[in-house]
């Protein structure tokens, strides 16, 4: 059975090279017509301020973040945050980890 769904966890801030890696992996997966689900937690929620990362939404990726971590860091739904980023919870990560065919964690 063809594997169609990729899940990615990103918990480091945009200064880490992980952000670039996630962008490139997600872009390649989307080009190959895979479904891409990205979950941001811990300092990873700061990636909502990274324009190249957020542009993954326009390319078809689904991006969810942990609202608890966002609130700890004063990252809120405000002007400037890309529309389409879902303020979710660890429950969403549980669902992503369960439904995808491959899961990568960048911590």
């Amino acid at each position: 059975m063809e594997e169609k769904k990729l899940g990615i966890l990103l918990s480091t801030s945009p200064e880490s090279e992980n952000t670039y890696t996630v962008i490139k992996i997600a872009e390649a997966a989307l080009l190959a017509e895979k479904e891409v689900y990205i979950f941001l937690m811990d300092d990873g929620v700061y990636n909502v301020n990274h324009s190249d990362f957020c542009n993954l939404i326009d390319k078809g990726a689904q991006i969810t973040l942990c609202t608890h971590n966002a609130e700890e860091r004063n990252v809120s739904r405000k002007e400037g945050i890309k529309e389409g980023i879902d303020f979710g919870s660890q429950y969403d990560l549980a669902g992503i980890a369960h439904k995808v065919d491959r899961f990568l964690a960048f911590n």
Partner: protein
Amino acid sequence: MFMKKIAVIIRKSPFNMLRNSEALRMSVGLTLAENSVSVFFVDDGVYILLPNQPEIIKSPVIDKHIETLSLLNGKLIADEESLKERNLDNLKYKVAIMSSDEVFDMIEKSDVVICW
């Protein structure tokens, strides 16, 4: 629906990072879907299992997440070699102690591996 096996590996000391608490909080969350979650304490990660008092240095809680994980049938496993190398035997929490081979075997059989 089938149960997915998820291995969470905690390798870093709790004394110089706050992320171990997040790793455990994440592990609790992962049990909310049809996932079988096992948390492996390896290398310096075994220090989490000592009777620490993180609240004294205003570090995030560990107790609550470990207790909740146990209640939700999450498996807690310490690597025996990691404990021996560090001469640790006064563990605060009830965890399974397994050899590195057994730990490796369980991780290899997991569908998802998340390393912190």
